[in-house]
C-alpha cells in the first residue's frame, strides 16, 4: 500500500479522537487534524508533543533509536502508527526522573577499560529506554541477557562495552535503592 492510498483512505474516514497517556498525562488528538494518515507514534511524540529525546534514525525498525515504553514494554515508535497507540500508556525518556538510575549510570560510566556509555548521544535515549524495559523485567540481568536485550539497538560510535557496564551499574543502583527501574 502506498502512502497515497493511506491518504485517500484517511480522508474518507470519519473524524475521531485518539487518546494516549504520555508520561502520565492523557493527551487527545484528532485524526486528520493532529494525526495525518500514516503518522507514526514517533512523529506524533516528536512533532506534536515536542518530545524530541527519541530519535528517528532509520524509520523502519532497524536501529532502536526511537525506542519508548508502551504499557511497560519497549517498542519501536517508528513502527507503530499514532492511531495504534490509542488507549495505551506511553513512557518516553522525558518521563524518567532526572536521577533515574539508568540515566545516571549511562552518564557516569567512565570505569577504566570500557570507555564511556555514549559519545554522539543520538542512540542514547533509545538504549536508555530499552535498558529500562530490560531492568523492569529482569532487575539483575547477566551480561548475555544484556547483550540479547540490547542487540536491537545500533550505536555507531560503538559504545557497547560502556553501555553494558552502565546497565550493570544501573542494576546495582536499583537493587541498592530497593526499588524498580
Amino acid at each position, binding site marked *: 500500500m502506498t502512502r497515497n492510498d493511506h491518504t485517500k483512505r484517511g480522508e474518507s474516514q470519519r473524524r475521531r479522537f485518539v487518546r494516549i497517556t504520555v508520561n502520565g498525562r492523557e493527551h487527545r488528538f484528532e485524526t486528520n487534524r493532529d494525526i495525518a494518515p500514516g503518522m507514526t507514534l514517533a512523529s506524533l511524540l516528536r512533532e506534536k508533543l515536542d518530545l524530541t529525546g527519541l530519535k528517528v534514525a532509520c524509520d*523502519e525498525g*532497524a536501529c532502536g533509536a526511537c525506542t519508548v515504553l508502551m504499557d511497560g514494554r519497549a517498542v519501536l515508535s517508528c513502527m507503530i502508527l499514532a492511531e495504534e497507540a490509542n488507549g495505551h500508556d506511553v513512557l518516553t*525518556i522525558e518521563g524518567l526522573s532526572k536521577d533515574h538510575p539508568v540515566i545516571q549510570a549511562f552518564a557516569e560510566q567512565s*570505569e577504566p577499560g570500557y570507555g564511556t556509555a555514549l559519545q554522539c548521544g543520538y542512540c542514547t535515549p533509545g538504549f536508555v529506554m530499552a535498558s529500562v524495559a530490560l531492568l523492569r523485567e529482569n532487575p539483575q540481568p547477566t551480561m548475555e541477557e544484556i547483550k540479547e536485550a540490547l542487540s536491537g539497538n545500533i550505536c555507531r*560510535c560503538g559504545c557497547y562495552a560502556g553501555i*553494558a557496564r552502565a546497565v550493570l551499574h544501573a542494576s546495582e543502583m536499583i537493587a541498592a535503592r530497593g526499588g524498580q527501574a
Partner: protein
Amino acid sequence: MKTPYRPRVARTFIGQYRPRIDAMEKASGRARYADDIASPLRVPGMAYAKVLRSPHPHARIRSLDTSKAEALPGVLGILTYKDPEVATLKPTNAGWTDGVDTVSYETMMWRRFKDRSVLGDYACWVGDEVGAVVAAESEQIAEEALRLIEVDWEVLPFVLRAEEAMKPGAPVLHPEIAPQNVMPEDEVGGPHRFVDKGDVERALADAEVVVEGKATFHNTTQNSLDNWCCLIEWQDDQLTVWSNSYEAEQTRSHISEMLDLPLHKVRVVSSYVGGQFGRGDTGDQPFFLFTALMARKVGRPVKFKHTRHESFHDGRQQTTYTARFGAKRDGTITAASFHCIGNAGAHADHTMFPLKFAPKEVAEVALAHVPNVRFEAYGVYTNRVPACMMRGVGNSQLNLILGHMVDLLAERLGRDPIDIALQNFGHEWAPLPNDSLVAVLQKGAASIGWKEKRHLPGHGPSYDGTRRRGVGFSCHPAWHAEWQELRRGEVQVGITVNPDGTIILDAPTVETGTGSNTCNVLGCAEALRFLGVSPQDIHWESVIDTNTSSKDCVQTDSAVSFLQSEVMAVAAREVRQRILERAADALQLPAADLDVVDGRVFARGFPEEGMTVRQLLMRPPLVPIVVKLSRRPLAEQTGVPFIATFAEVEVDTSTGHVQVLHMVVVNDCGTVMFASGAEAQQIGGQTIGVGEALTEETIYDQATGIPLNFNWIDYTIPTMADMPEIDPVLLEVWRGGGEYGACGIGEGTVTCAPSAILNAIYNAVGVRIDELPAKPEKILAALEKARGGL
C-alpha cells in the same frame, strides 16, 4: 585485563578518567540536534523540501513537466534546473575541503574536479539529485509531488566497476574532465606516480626475496545515526542555516561564495551532531544551495532532511591495491611498490585524498627507512554513489595491503611479522627500531597472548572439529600530530573569567561525539589551575553561531582534542597577567611583585595576605576578564607515534563464519587528554573496523546499477551481540611539540582492524582473504580452493 593507563606527567585534570561534560544532557535525551531544532512546533510555518533523484545510474533529462505536481494541494513551490537562479550556479564539487582548512571557491582543495552541477539535468548515479526540488507543507506532500513530476529521461549506458570503466569504449561520465574516466593528475594530489623514491624496479630485481600481494577494500558507508539535515531561513537579505554540518565556518563560506552573498548576511548555527565518521558534510553539499534558494522562493523556513536510505550517499572509496615488496633474507625491506585503482563513484570530490594525499603522508612517516618506495594511483569515475571521506580515509585502505604484505613477507622468511614491522617501519626523525612502535607492538602482543596463540597458518587448535582459532595484527603510523595540522592556520580560543571566577570558554568545534569538548574543558581547567577552577566551573558552549562564536576548529583528524588546549595553555598566561594587573591596582603593589595561586592573589612571600580572585573581580564595575587568542599549530616536525590492533578470531570451517573473540587496540597518544573519551574511541572504532572486515558492504544490482541494501536490515552493522571483548591500551611514549605534545587518535582506531582480522583468519585456517568483507561464502570458497576443489 582492564588496567588504567599510567600518565607520563602527573597532571590535575588532563588525562582523567571521568564522564563527558555532555553526558547528563545526552543520557537524559535533552541534547538537541538539527532534526530536533527543525521541528514544526519550534519553527512555525516550516516547509519541507524534497529533491528529485535519478532512478537511473546514468541518464539525462530531456524534459520535465511539473504541472501536476504544482497543482497538488500543499505544494508551495518547485524549482527546476531551468530556473535562472539554479541554472546560473557555478560548477562545483563536494571536495572543497578535507575539513582541516576552511576555503573559498577559488582555493577549494580539489579545484581541478568541478564535476557537480547543482540540481542539473545530468544524472550519473542512482539517487543523484537532479532536475527539481519541491517544497510543501509536509514531507509526505513533497514526496507525492515528486512522484507527479513527469520526467523524460534519456537513459545512458552505465558502468560500475573501475577496471571496466578504464577500458576504451566504456560509458564516460565526465568527458570534459576525464575522457576515459581516469581522473587526470592535479596540482594537489600530484602525478599518478606520486611517490617514487630510489629505484624500485632495480631494487626488486636485486632483492633476495620478493613477495606480491593484493587487497581490495570495499565501499562501506559511515552510517551516522543523525541523517543529514538543514533548516534554512532567508528573510529579506539575511540567510540563516541550522544544520548538522560539522564545519560551521565552511558552510558559511560555501553558501556565501556560491550564492554571492556577503559573509555577514549568512549566519550558520550548528548544534550537537549525531555522529560524523568523515561523512562529507563539510558544508559544501549542494543541498544547502537548493534549500536556500527554495527558502527565498517560498518565503518560509525550509527543512531538507535525508532519509536513512539517502544517508548511504557517501562512504569509503573502494580501492584495489597490488603491491610488491623486495627484501633481504634478514628481513630488511629494500623496496616497496604500491599500485592502486580507486573506484570513486560518480564524482571526484575527495578521491585524491584517500588515493594520494593520505598514502603520501604514510610513506613519509612509516616507510622513511625503506630506500626504494613507489606509490601509483588512479581515480576512476563509475556510476556508483560518490564515496571518499570516511573515518580513517585512505589509511584504512592502505593498511589493508600493508598489513597483508608484512604478514606475507614474514611467512616467506619464517619470521614473526612483529619483528618485520619493527625492523622496517619508523619515521625519519628517529632511528630504527622506533620507540613508539616497539612499545605499541610489545604491549599489544602481551595483551593478546601472541606468543602462546600464534602458530603456523592453519595449524592452530581445533574446537568441536570444525572451528579453528588464530591471531593477527596490523600497525600503522598515527595521525595527526600538531605539525601535521599546520594547514589549519590560526586556531582561535576565547576565555572569559566572570567576576565570580567562573569561566565561559569560547573554544568552538561542532560536537559530533568525539569528546573533544571534554578535552577542551579539562585543558581549560588545567591551564587555569592558578584560579582554583575545576571543570564544573567552566561553561563550554555547544552551539556554534558564526555571528558570535570564534571560528570553529573543524572536527577532523581527531586533532581538536588537543589543538585548542594548546592555545588555551598560551591564553592562560595572558589571563594570569591581566589578573595580576587588576590586583596591582587593587592592592597598590607592582604587578611584578604579585602572584596568583589557587584562586588567591597576593604579594610574593605573603600568601596569607592579599585577596581571592573572586573578591578582586567582584569589585564594581564587574567587568569580566576576556582574552581571545589565535595561534598557528607548531611547525616543529616531531614525527608521529604508532598504533596497532591485535585480533583473535575463530573460524568455523564448516560454515565459513568468523567470530572475533578478542581485540587489543593500542594507541601511543603522546599525551592522553581525556582517558575515558580516548578509550571510548578505541573501543568504538572497532564497530566500524569489525563491520568493514566481516559484514558491511554496499551491494549493487549489476544489471540495473541500482543499489540494493541502503538500509540497516540488509546492510549489517555490528550490534552489542556481535562485538568481541576489546582491550583499549593507551600509551605515552612519543611526544610532539607544545604543552601536551599529543596526537589525534580517534580516527585511526578503525584503520588496523580489517587487516588484523584478515591476518588472524589466515593464521587460523591458512587461507588468505584479500577482498573485504570476509563473508562466510568467501571463506568457504577459499577453503575449498585450498583443498584442491573448484
